């Protein structure tokens, strides 16, 4: 029996698929290298320069004069928090943008990071809880915020635009709670409290990294494993379920995983402005329409946070927190994105 489809066509499809896979791997590899390079650079550079050998010495547990403290206690936790938080924000953001099929529907606009942030600032400033407890409560609060927004927006079926607008309203409530608590904080708490308004890596420490690192180790493989289903969901619910995706179950699992990543990152570094918003569109821009954008978006997020934090520390007279830099740098790109998506009447990433 001869094939129904001519072999040339099959070959063409196979070759195109091959090419797309190769492009995905190339882009991801380049991003991975860039993240690694920036990470190492941010360990090496600063007020004092340390060579890679000295840094390796610190990482492997040797005592290196000066470097053990500067790198081991200051730069390494800071860069690691930035790396992990950027990964989380990037991946969480692109999941929401893909599910809602709207680049503007990122978790920092629709109130999910605000929910995590409000819970975290309440736990820290008012209750004085430890970092692990704060991370978990922030996660619960972010999930509750996501659920609240979803339920409020659900009326004769969900609607993307309505969900976004309701998210903006919910975010306004959380933001006012945050600014109330911050306005009550003691003067010496103020810089720490400001972290919950813009996001900062200034007081990164190992005990703060631990919950975040565990969350990344558990949730990231889970999310990456669902990458293909997310791609199919973007085609629409009917198509996805025809192709064998258990739509509702998969969507809930995706949201819970993404919210978990976002909440742990927010609890560790504050709501770093616009990273969740920007990473997805940038990743898709670089990647083109090939493969799952989750991992590339995470890497772009990490890259953004590391570069912005490095710039904030060294490029200006004073040290600015990373959220301020991403907010200021991100705004023009965002305006451009808004204009472009308006012009194309368009929606997607």
């Amino acid at each position, binding site marked *: 029996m001869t094939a129904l489809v001519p072999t040339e066509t099959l070959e063409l499809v196979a070759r195109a698929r091959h090419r797309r896979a190769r492009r995905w791997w190339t882009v991801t590899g380049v991003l991975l290298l860039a993240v690694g390079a920036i990470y190492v650079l941010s360990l090496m550079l600063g007020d004092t320069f340390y060579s890679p050998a000295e840094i390796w010495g610190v990482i492997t547990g040797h005592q290196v004069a000066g470097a053990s403290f500067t790198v081991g206690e200051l730069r390494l936790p800071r860069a690691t928090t930035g790396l992990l938080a950027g990964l989380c924000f990037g991946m969480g953001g692109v999941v929401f943008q893909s599910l809602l099929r*709207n680049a*503007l529907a990122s978790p*920092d*606009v629709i109130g999910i990071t605000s929910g995590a942030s409000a819970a975290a600032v309440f736990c820290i400033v008012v209750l004085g809880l430890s970092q692990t407890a704060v991370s978990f409560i922030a996660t619960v609060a972010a999930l509750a915020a996501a659920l609240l927004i979803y339920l*409020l*927006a659900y*009326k004769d079926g969900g*609607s*993307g*635009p*309505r969900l*976004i*607008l*309701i998210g*903006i*309203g*919910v*975010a*306004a*409530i959380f*933001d*006012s*709670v945050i*600014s*109330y608590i*911050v*306005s*009550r904080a003691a*003067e010496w708490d*103020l*810089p720490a409290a*400001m972290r919950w*308004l*813009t996001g900062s890596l200034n007081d990164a420490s190992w005990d703060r990294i631990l919950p975040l690192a565990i969350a990344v180790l558990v949730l990231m493989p889970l999310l990456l494993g669902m990458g293909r289903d997310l791609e199919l969901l973007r085609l629409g619910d009917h198509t996805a379920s025809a192709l064998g995706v258990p739509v509702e179950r998969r969507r809930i699992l995706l949201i819970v995983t993404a919210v978990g990543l976002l909440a742990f990152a927010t609890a560790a570094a504050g709501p770093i*402005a*616009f990273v969740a918003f920007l990473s997805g569109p940038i990743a898709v821009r670089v990647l083109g329409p090939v493969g799952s954008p989750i991992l590339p978006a995470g890497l772009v997020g990490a890259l953004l946070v590391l570069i912005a934090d490095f710039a904030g520390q060294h490029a200006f*007279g*004073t040290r*600015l*927190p990373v*959220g*301020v*830099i*991403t*907010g*200021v740098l*991100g*705004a023009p790109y*965002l*305006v451009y994105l*808004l*204009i472009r*998506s*308006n*012009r*194309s*009447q368009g*929606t997607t990433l």
Partner: protein
Amino acid sequence: MIADVAAPAPHALPQRRMGRRALWLVVLLAALAVVAVASVAVGARTVGWDDIWNGLRGMTDSVSAASVSKRVPRTLLAMIVGAALAVAGATLQGAMRNPLGDPQLLGVTGGASLAIVVGIAFFGLSTATGYIWVGMLGAAIAAAFVYAIGSLGRGGPTPLRLALAGAVIAVAFSSLMSAILLPRIDVMSVFRFWQVGGVGGATPQSILQVLPFLIVGFLICLLSSPALNSLALGDELAAGLGTRVRTARLVSSFGAVILCGAATAVAGPIGFVGLVVPHVCRLLVGVDHRWLLPFSAVTGAVLLTAADVIGRVVARPQEIEVGIVTAILGAPFFIAIVRRQKVRAL
């Protein structure tokens, strides 16, 4: 016979409507009087009638009478700021034909805040009048910016686009503000109280300084209310009726920008008053802007004064700033509007 029956009909409806409006006006003014008295009487310290009377006459011998004399300017400021924000919201909603028009949601108060911070940090701005001018400038720039971004592309400015543009601009502005404030702890500790929006720092001087601006803004809005009525019919029809669409939109928005820039300069960013009040007033008196704007002014004054009283009472002896109370009361209302509305896809 036919004439007898038919003749009263055209007049009956307006008369009934006039009666209803007058009734509501009386109710609202009574409510304003009640909240004004409550605002003077209630607070961290509860005072008696004698103290209120003494405080009003400027006799500040007892602590209670002294606290009354502090509460009077505060009450006045809450009233005029509430009125200004509500009129600004009603005008913006009419001018942009957008049910979600609110000075804070559209990033206009954010623009005023940023401009004032820049003024304090880089240009040594320190006078109240200076704050007001700079605040209005910032508000105008932000309004133009948000409207331009929101209305680019096909389909013009939909509520969703404007709200998203406003949210995005607000985040960007607050990042810029942090960038300016963080190196200057001294400015920041002053600013953080201003940032949450409150009327607690009111003095008779600050009221007198802001009042001329508010009156001018209010007059501009009121004079453009016939034009707003034609704009509500749609741009083509309004143009057909002889309204200069572009001019009308520009002038009325200018009035709204003056109002919310000046109000923000004196009381900090206060959200949702401009959103909620016009919607409530439309239910009471209909969509005619000539009535809607004055009613919004009175209702806004009632709402903000009431919110200020609530903020003073719920966390005694501490206070919750009025901006936080209005956000917590107003955001659910915003959500309710969104749920009712058929939101056009982006």
